[in-house]
């Protein structure tokens, strides 16, 4: 019998702890497949964040560090400077990257650090139980803004990709989504380009992936995918903000 599909070698056999309908699993698989296709699994060192993907070190089949909250880009800097020939990446959520870790993400881009960041934006704090994130949309309910986020109180949601695209050292910046198969394929292409950018030594690369959180949004998984498309994409437009040719 011919084998038509195999799980990527980039993931371990460990069962993930993610909630039903959460898109972290898809994003993990895309990153792992890209690392395998680029033949860098034996050469990769990843950094897991604090947040829902805190246990990512158990799922990626590569050497891993677990960083403190928001500091993954600094940890990755230490790794890359010590091991310049390895492929180094961080995998971070929006609380980790866009809130507590803003200094680290801005400066890893500013230094043009040759690492790749996978930024999973689901517009909420998942692990801690659905608190407001800097990325939470106006009117979106969270446990720390129970009537919905207001601009007057909390400001407008932070657009990380647009912000980082203003920094010269950010060689590759793209926002993608994983709410349907077409977008998943595009997301994988962007992730691959980001890692290729690192391997070619062109500078810092980041892919922002719009993701769902059915549990904390309080919406069923299939509805969550529709909610993402209808609400997140208008505010967080998909597309490339920076490529090495422009940089």
């Amino acid at each position, binding site marked *: 019998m011919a084998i038509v599909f195999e799980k990527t070698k980039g993931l371990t056999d460990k069962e993930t702890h993610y909630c039903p309908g959460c898109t972290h699993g898809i994003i993990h698989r895309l990153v792992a497949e890209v690392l395998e296709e680029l033949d860098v699994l034996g050469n990769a*060192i990843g950094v897991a964040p604090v947040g829902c993907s805190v246990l990512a070190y158990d799922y990626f089949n590569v*050497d*891993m*560090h*677990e960083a403190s909250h928001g*500091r993954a880009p*600094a940890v990755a800097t*230490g790794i890359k*400077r010590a091991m310049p020939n390895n492929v180094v990446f961080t995998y971070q959520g929006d609380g980790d990257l866009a809130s507590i870790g803003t200094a680290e993400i801005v400066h890893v881009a*500013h230094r043009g650090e040759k690492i790749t960041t996978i930024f999973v934006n689901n517009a909420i704090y998942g692990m801690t139980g659905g608190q407001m994130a800097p990325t939470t949309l106006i009117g979106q309910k969270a446990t720390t803004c129970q009537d919905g986020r207001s601009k007057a109180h909390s400001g407008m949601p932070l657009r990380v990709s647009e912000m980082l695209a203003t920094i010269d050292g950010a060689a590759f910046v793209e926002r993608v989504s994983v709410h349907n198969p077409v977008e998943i394929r595009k997301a994988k292409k962007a992730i691959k380009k980001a890692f290729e950018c690192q391997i070619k030594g062109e500078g810092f690369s980041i892919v922002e992936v719009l993701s769902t959180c059915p549990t904390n949004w309080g919406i069923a998984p299939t509805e969550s995918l529709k909610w993402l498309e209808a609400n997140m994409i208008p505010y967080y437009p998909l597309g490339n903000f920076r490529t090495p040719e422009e940089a």
Partner: protein
Amino acid sequence: MAKVLMKGNEAIGAAAIQAGCKYFFGYPITPQNELPEYMSKELPKNDGVFVQAESEVAAINMVYGAAGCGVRVMTSSSSPGIALKQEGITYIAGAELPCVIVNIVRGGPGLGGIQPAQSDYFQSTRGGGNGDYKLLVLAPANLQEMVDMVQEAFDMADYYRNPVMVVGDGMIGQMMEPIEFRTPVKRELPSKEGWATTGTKGNRKPHIINSLFLDPQGLEDHNIRLQKKYKTMKENEARYEAYNMENAEIVLAAYGTTSRICKNAIDKLKEEGINIGLIRPQTLWPFPEKAFQEIPETVKAALTVEMSEGQMIDDVRLALNGKIPTEFYGRSGGMIPTPDAIIDKIKEMLGGLK
């Protein structure tokens, strides 16, 4: 090797490079700036890398990343900067990574001042970070001892897979003294191959650098293992210098720059026929408890002298365990105790003792 005259902060950098340190991540803060400046100039000439981080927080996390790859790495700062590094330090201790951290102490609390102080004794020995962890804390009193200790610190860190902190007050960082680079006593250092993240090369299981243990039993087991390691450090690494202890009536306890001032006071009093001893901890953790437990019968009281409002005195009291009265004399905020002020305090105590 011939002696060279160097400024303290630069001598630390030179000693680190001698010891094979290849990576330095730092952030500017007075009074330790000559050290990162020196490293930025000298490390690239020695196949190393210097990165000026965006903050102390980022710098210590860069150290965490590099240390996890098994390389010799260092950072330095001064008191408020070390406060910012505490989160990273507890992660490094929890993940059992070797590195060297230098604190050129200035006065506090808060932004404090920029003059020499010893008010970070608690911060160094109790840890400002969370959890049951310990650092090896070395406290040199002169530049020769500083360069010897910095070199040995890298071996100690590798030997125990533990962060080592070298504490010098601003005086030690800023002054110049002749020094000689010597090779530290050789230790059998364990291989890092079994844990360092260098890429699996497809022929081993992934290595994970981590301090997260969600299973309570797993975390307690980890803590018990750490405590065993700390016990070994306590048994093997406590160091001190005893000065003029024979027939001493009072024993002084002081470390770093303050110990040198105490020696001046002791020598002056000796000319007057008054015998005072000194125990100078060279390691703040582990604290040399034995030195205090074995003081001669002639000693009737202890006096702890610090450039703080009284921190090491807690450990002196714990070590003496009520055996003799223990008093304190200190200056803080960057003020330096004078030999005469120490002599006055000793004479006041002797009056009370007689």
